[in-house]
């Protein structure tokens, strides 16, 4: 509520931000990371599985992300591939990973996670010359737009180039 758009007035957003700060202080999140009280609390909530909130798909359903791999072969050929897994259950987990990649504010972490998936692609296609990983956000049509013929579209976010050494050579984004 403190971060996202809701039906509530702006005044409530300010209140939510203050409440969030107060609650964080109360449960030790404002203490230094090395503080034993904070570490003990963090350990307990992680062990009990209560470290996250319960606002699934709330207040609104967020946009998803797509990671498209552009595979470049030595003969100049180009192919496109999406991260693949063997089961639908694992597919749900890859979607979670893509959400983490799309939402993280840390460039270095995003790069590490994209590289992990790119390495898996490379293992499947060892004859590749380079791989470009393109991260896009998915724009979903409304039901009305869908009946008018509009389908889901993709908005470019970042691109990472990986060369033979598997090191990211260049990052583009806007």
């Amino acid at each position: 509520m403190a971060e996202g758009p809701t039906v509530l007035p702006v005044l409530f957003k300010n209140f939510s931000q203050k409440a969030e700060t107060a609650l964080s202080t109360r449960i030790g999140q404002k203490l230094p990371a090395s503080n034993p009280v904070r570490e003990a609390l963090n350990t307990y909530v992680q062990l009990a599985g209560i470290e996250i909130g319960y606002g699934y798909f709330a207040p609104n359903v967020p946009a998803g992300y797509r990671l498209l791999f552009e595979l470049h072969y030595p003969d100049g050929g180009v192919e496109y591939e999406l991260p693949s897994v063997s089961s639908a259950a694992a597919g749900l987990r890859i979607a979670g990973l893509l959400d983490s990649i799309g939402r993280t504010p840390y460039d270095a972490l995003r790069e590490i996670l994209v590289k992990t998936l790119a390495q898996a692609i490379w293992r499947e296609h060892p004859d590749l010359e380079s791989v470009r990983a393109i991260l896009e956000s998915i724009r979903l049509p409304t039901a009305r737009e869908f009946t008018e013929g509009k389908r889901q579209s993709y908005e470019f976010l970042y691109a990472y180039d990986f060369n033979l050494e598997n090191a990211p050579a260049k990052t583009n984004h806007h």
Partner: protein
Amino acid sequence: MQSVKTGLFGFLFSPSTDTWLAILRIGLGLEVTLYSLSLRSDWISLLSGTARKAAEALLSLESHFVPRLGWFVASAAQVSVHEEAVLSMAWACLLGVGCGLLVGVASRFSAISAWLLHLCVAKSGGFVSYGMDNFLTIGLFYLMLSPLPDRYSLDWRLRKSQPKNPQLLGFWRRVLQLHLCIIYFFSGLTKCFGRGWWDGSNVWRSLIRPPFNAINPEILVTWKYLFPLAGILICLLEFGYPFFIWSTRTRKIWLLSVCAMHVVIAVAMGMYLFSLIMIVLNVAAFGPNLIRTEHARISFRPHEIIL
């Protein structure tokens, strides 16, 4: 003040049979078994390499004491055992303890092992975890602490165990009930604040958003007039859960409606394991009373007639 204390004690330690615990054990055993089997072919790729190390590094910023697969991998490396072998062993152990819970063999050991192993997997695979993992951790955490074994387990038959303290059984059931109320209340409350749940657009978005798009949008769009109703119903069911689940008059309809909602989520969004864990937690927490009430009504009727 004394009456408040007595009332609170009576509420928290209300005696209970172990039927709820049997439902929780069998349900979580089934969940852990299906969870392991569903990830069998992707287990190594999801949990090995850089992504695991990055997740564990971030976990260390929170706490150094939360169990993780990295501990086992590092220990095994000392005796030249590969990461893949450790992960395969973890998978086999998780499947084994899942089956152990299902039939009730070494119930306490199975519950602790299932909680520990699943926690390691969920934390080390932090980037590939989702809500289902949290609910499974919650369920296994309570199961591990509850007075096992229950009378439907194989342990009970083999060891001829004594009945457990009904107040202690009641306490852990009450904790699970209260936790579910908090979960649904806040889930419903935060949904109520989103405009999209009132006009149905969030229902549409959740059903067409990859990878939850199990139903063809061409078919879905023909039901678009039902989405606002579905959105409002979801908000009402979740937000109203703590208010309507306690009363014996509304409990049955609320419990059935919530379970039906999770069945629809399973079918329409392909979230079978998520739905199963939610149904298991709900039925374990609030289901047994309904069944007992029915039994009581049937069995006491002849006595009333005689009297």
